[in-house]
């Protein structure tokens, strides 16, 4: 039981770490990577908690959600990267400027 929660808490840690990086960094590529780290944390939580009943086989429903989630994350990352390149082509800058 304990190692399941170790992995789940590790997932929470990844999520918070990604959130920190998302807020602190201004470079768009770092922001995209931070969102990916956050997503990985969520996947880790889901996969870990699927196995929290020791006497039963792992719950297949979270596993299925993670599988679809990974493919969605990849496609969303591709779209984000293209948007980032477009921002750089339009402004010559890898950051979104503050309007102040």
């Amino acid at each position: 039981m304990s190692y399941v929660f170790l992995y789940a808490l590790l997932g929470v840690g990844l999520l918070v770490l990604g959130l920190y990086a998302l807020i602190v960094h201004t470079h768009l590529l770092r922001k995209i990577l931070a969102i990916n780290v956050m997503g990985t944390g969520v996947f880790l939580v889901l996969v870990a908690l699927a196995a929290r009943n020791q006497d039963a086989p792992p719950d297949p429903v979270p596993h299925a959600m993670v599988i679809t989630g990974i493919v969605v994350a990849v496609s969303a990352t591709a779209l984000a990267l293209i948007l980032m390149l477009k921002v750089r082509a339009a402004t010559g800058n890898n950051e979104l400027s503050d309007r102040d």
Partner: protein
Amino acid sequence: MKANGHTGKTFRLLLVLLLSVVAVGLGYAVLDLHSSTINLSKLVETNLAVSGASNPVTAVLLNFRGYDTLLEMGVLLVALLGVWSLGGIPDYRESTPGPVFDTLSRLLVPMLILVAGYLLWVGAHAPGGAFQAGSVLGAAGVLLLLSGWRLEKRFAGLPLRVVLTLGLFVFVIAGGGFLLVGNMFMEYPPALAGQLILLIEVAATMSIGATLAILFLGSRPEGGPDK
């Protein structure tokens, strides 16, 4: 950084404090989940016989929670449309591959296609299935694109679009077709469920593989009819 010097330091300290609160809250929520649980795995297990697949994950993906997978195929297609509608990458440089990479890609691509086929077939009763096979196929496509291979002009138009939308199309037809005989949406007759799942998975694998490879290319392949 917008804030610098002393304000930047206090900002970061405050952020770390706030995020620690978030982390503790989430950690507590995760640890607290243990007591209250709806046992879905038992529900899946009892209904596995009528699902048409003996691998519980595949049964959940394509039968019990087919909606998720259907919408996920939709998301892939929308992401691709988004990438295409933004136009190509402005400064995309191509490089010629060295002899090692050239030979390696020639050896690896057939291997990857074979592995994808195996993963697709084995998904009915063991870990594997459309998403894994599609990802491997997409990796093969990325390898080909990196080695300078491009889709022929006559395949870049309609044939490519057919492959890209095939997964979603077959899924909707298979899910909606049985509405005509009085079933619910995505309620497969148990006798046909195995074949239907295999059909959907084959179509989904091809679409996922093609979509991921084209997403990597970052723009519409040249030679399309509406260019």
